[in-house]
């Protein structure tokens, strides 16, 4: 199955929150939505889960959608088991069906030892795992996860990705938001939002092809206008492809491509 969003536009109190967003969500894939504060990531999640009605655009989405709102979405004064039970009951799971699913999720999340702990007493990483488990419990056709790994340490983060991969390989489609570009690169498809509009959309390879000219790296501060630093090394994007002095051609990663694209769209206030 393929779900889709076309020409999505959202205005909130007269302010444009999202504009010209298109998505094709194929079954068994992960789409990462990346962007900074106010880029429109959470607005998009709210539209996908039906919490916010778009101003215009068309949506074709499945009947069962799991959702993890930003900041876990679990109830602090319920235990791990009770939080999951609540979701199971909302989806009218029988006792037997719920027990089976609970067992699977405890194994996948390693939350078993904490099953009777209140969610408010879990570590940040455990609480995020619980939030993702709650979104995935009903085996939804689409799961929307809003910043599932923010504030999560590397060990818990990889466990979360294994949980996400497990669910994707059993057919769920996942849309997740992140502020981390190395993480976005894990997803098959990436939507980079900037001030509500798509800066880039596609696979890593497709996004790489969107950028005209060439990217260079150099140790001395270049005079070219489109320059920035990563870890003490300068990057230069030359739209016409010419090489700055003493520079070597760069095999760009997602971070480089998106930074260069944000220059090419020439929006105000992106980089000094």
């Amino acid at each position, binding site marked *: 199955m393929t779900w889709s969003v076309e020409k999505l536009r959202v205005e909130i109190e007269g302010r444009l929150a999202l504009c010209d967003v298109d998505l094709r969500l194929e079954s068994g894939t992960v789409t990462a939505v990346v962007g900074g504060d106010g880029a429109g990531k959470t607005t998009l999640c709210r539209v996908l889960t039906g919490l916010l009605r778009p101003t215009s655009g068309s949506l074709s989405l499945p009947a069962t959608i799991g959702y993890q709102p930003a900041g876990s979405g679990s109830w602090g004064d319920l235990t791990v088991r009770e939080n999951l039970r609540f979701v199971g009951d909302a989806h009218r799971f029988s006792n037997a069906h719920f027990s089976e699913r609970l067992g699977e999720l405890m194994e996948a999340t390693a939350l078993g030892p904490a099953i009777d702990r209140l969610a408010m007493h879990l*570590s940040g990483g455990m609480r995020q795992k619980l939030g993702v488990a709650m979104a995935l419990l009903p085996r939804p056709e689409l799961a929307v996860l809003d910043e599932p790994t*923010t504030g999560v340490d590397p060990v818990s983060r990889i466990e979360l990705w294994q949980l996400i991969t497990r669910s994707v390989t059993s057919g769920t489609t996942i849309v997740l938001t992140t502020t981390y570009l190395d993480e976005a690169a894990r997803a098959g498809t990436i939507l980079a939002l900037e001030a509500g509009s798509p800066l880039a959309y596609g696979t890593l390879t497709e996004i790489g092809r969107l950028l005209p000219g060439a990217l260079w790296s150099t140790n001395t501060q270049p005079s070219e206008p489109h320059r920035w630093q990563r870890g003490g090394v300068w990057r230069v994007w030359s739209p016409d492809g010419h090489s700055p002095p003493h520079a070597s051609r760069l095999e760009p990663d997602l971070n480089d491509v998106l930074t260069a694209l944000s220059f090419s769209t020439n929006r105000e206030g992106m980089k000094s």
Partner: protein
Amino acid sequence: MTKLVEVSELVKRFGEQVAADEASLEVNEGEVVGLLGANGAGKTTLIRCLLGLLDFDSGRVLLLGESPNRNVLRRVGYVPQGLGLYSDLTVEENLDFRREIFGTRVEGVVDDRRVDELSHGLQRRAAFTAALAHRPQILILDEPTSGVGPWTRAELWDTIRAEVSNGAGALVTTHHLDEAEYCDRLVLMAAGRVVKSGSLSELISGETAVEVTTDRRDEAFAALTEAALLTVLSGSKLRVVSADLQQVTRILSAEGIAGHAAAVAASLDEVFIATSSR
């Protein structure tokens, strides 16, 4: 090179729990040291001992050559995880407050909005302004860019690098690979101990992960996780963390799954996980 921070064999216990277990690290002038570790690895404990906010059981802690004290803290710029701003005061009032307590000149952008009216990214920037305005010699930043977008993060790092190229030093905790590349040296902590340190390229050199390309992704994932291998999606491929190539190849062929497995350079995250679980 002047040592700005010197922590040697620091031990801090909370009851039975050993939060810092003979942890040692140094920060020199002109360098950014990244302190990495899972939650509960002891990063914040180490920083709190370093700032004199927490007593410790044994070991030695020197901040700008002295035991942490009120006077030496005037030359330290500290951004705690919770930002350390009064959210019901304006940015300017927060700066005034610093000026009073530190007895230092504080310059910065005047902003008369209350801190809690600002976006998360602007709050982070305000916390930086407040912590850096008195031109400290050493910056101590506990997850300074948590929750901000990629471009704001790059700007905050530009600020850190600019201070350091003027001769300051920085000790920065982070969870993210995206940030490790801005550090000159990295120190990995697990269960209170320093388990590894070096530059990013030193830490990842020689370490590998296994990348699997196959049309039968879903079955390959099931077989690899069944064998208790940590496996995650990586674009259209799968990546197996801290496994050896032969083992992966054997599992795939035992299941009759055609595909290509190759050892590839591990990411810092993957090295980190392998190191913490060893």
